[in-house]
């Protein structure tokens, strides 16, 4: 936990410095007749972030925060596997939306999560894997007229558009 606390503070400090540098692409000074430049607001706030991160780092080094005194691991092996699995599944789901669209990705995600993580019966899994995209379709596409990405499955939906819209 102590190592994680120190590393987080360092990473956040570097990120703050990057934001300051990035903000400075726009004028950060006073422009006569226009007021503060476009970069001034994020620049000074990012400077504040850097100071806060350094403050957090100093407190962590001196062992003031509870996390910096804790010897518990940041992740134990069991939860690391579980969280890693879930995050991996999420990344794959969002990634596969580009390819097979929402209506391909949602059933796959449900099958993976309910079957492998949850160990539910096939009946329940199939019900959700089919029910969720159907409800999503009617709520978003038909009621709210928000088209969701469909990837290469787009042509399969043309007959549905013809019926409902």
């Amino acid at each position, binding site marked *: 936990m102590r190592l994680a606390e120190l590393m987080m503070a360092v990473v956040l400090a570097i990120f703050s410095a990057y934001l300051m540098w990035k903000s400075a692409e726009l004028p950060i000074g006073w422009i006569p007749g*226009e007021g503060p430049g476009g970069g001034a*607001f994020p620049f000074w706030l990012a400077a504040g972030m850097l100071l806060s*991160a350094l403050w957090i780092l100093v407190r962590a080094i001196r062992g003031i925060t509870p996390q910096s005194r804790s010897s518990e691991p940041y992740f134990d092996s069991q939860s690391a596997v579980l969280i890693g699995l*879930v995050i991996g599944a999420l990344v794959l789901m*969002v990634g596969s939306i580009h390819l097979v669209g929402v209506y391909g990705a949602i059933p796959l995600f449900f099958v993976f999560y309910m079957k492998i993580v949850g160990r539910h019966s096939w009946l329940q899994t199939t019900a959700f894997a089919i029910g969720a995209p159907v409800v999503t379709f009617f709520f978003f596409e038909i009621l709210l007229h928000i088209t969701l990405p469909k990837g290469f499955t787009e042509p399969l939906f043309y007959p549905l558009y013809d019926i409902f819209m």
Partner: protein
Amino acid sequence: MEIIQLLLNGFLVALEPMNLFLVIVGCAVGLFIGAMPGLGSVNGVAILLPVTFIVPPTSAIIFLAAIYYGAMYGGAVSSIMLGIPGASTAVATTFDGRPMAVQGRADVALVAAAVASFTGGTVSVILFTAFAPPLAHVALAFGSAEEFALMLLAFGTFIGLGGDDIPKTFFSILIGLVLSAVGLDVISGQPRLIFGDIPGFFHGINFLVLAIGIYGIGEILWTIESSRGEVQVSKAEVSVKRILSALKEMVGCIKSMIMGSFVGYFVGLLPAAGATPGSIMAYGFAKTMSKNPDSYGKGNIDGVAAPESANNAASTGSMLPMLTLGIPGSPTTAILLGGMVIWGLEPGPRLFVDQTEFVWGLIASLYVANLFALLLNIAFIPLFIWVLKLPFTILAPVIFVLCVVGGYAPTQDLHDVWLMLLFGISGYLMRKLDYPMAPMVLAIVLGPLAESSLRQSLLLSEGSLMVFIERPISGPIVAVAMLLFLLPVFKAIKKKRAAGKEPEDGSQG
């Protein structure tokens, strides 16, 4: 007296069978739209605006007002049930609503939200009826300096009363503000903070992307880790008896509900402020005035009642600048304003004189919508509780899918979904180290308003910061905000004196 007569006429209009039907349908549709993470009253009103062109203007606005109110209630539902604010106006509701649901008191929190919303709506309609014209003048006296002072006050309550690690709270607020600055600079129109030249950053970072990422993805990851992915989200129960006893419990919240209504109504009146800062400030005030501020954030019923009464009061309040001055107080009223122009009604001072049926029909229908939203919301509580009782390995993928679809819907850009995932994971990692997340979400919501009010004030004062202190309204607000910023320092000094042996303790306050 004349106003009461007009209001009664308004009620007669609102209670015509056709209009009453529209109110009920609108409330039900609004409730579901609001309960979806990612969709709020703005989306509901915007999407259904074209539908209203087939009915007369008065019926149309009644329908939209019903959606508006329904969505305001619905936002609280997802805040409490899933811990994901359904809309920016419901951010403050998650702070105590979510802990209550985790403790198995989701039904009490839902009843509290419904009753508080109803109270807020009632108080604001009375205030609207009685004090509409003079209040419009006071609100106009609020310039950019005063708005910025209000923002400072909102952040001050987090530092002074948050109880979290101080530098971590500062960091959280600041990063939220910087993220809100991504996109096109409002004043110069130049692109800024476009990371890696990715075009998706040009439209800025929608607060919903951060809120859904942190409260949706991050919160569920947190729950999966702490529960090993097995348990149910909450051991919620529901029965008529429990709902009745929850209603009784609400009697104790009268003070925070009334306070929330007044704060919300007044902040709602301010042009461009609206219900979000209103609900956040009401939460801050309730916490400040409470005898037991430490119980906030851990499931205090007042922490649900205050912001919920405020956001409903503010939604009525924000109608006032829209109707009288043509200045919308919130994104939703901006869309309503657009609708009014299409219906051929010209907003402005003349509206109250020329279109009395429309104005008072609107006010009365807000009230009727308020009542129906309350009834529908309480009627749906068993359904909401049933959802909560699903095993977590079913609920988690459902919430993840809701987050992904909800994150996509507002901008229809997959870039935002990736960003949401990134925020969710990094927010979860930071939260494990006790970085508070709520200030970050609030900061990204209030950021654009804070920046534009700061820059406008500095422009007018030619760079002098004295403008915030000298003006009669902003001066005292800034002073209170500064006191709140310094409060942790005083507390630390006091603690040091009290316990001389322990030289420094990280968790002040």
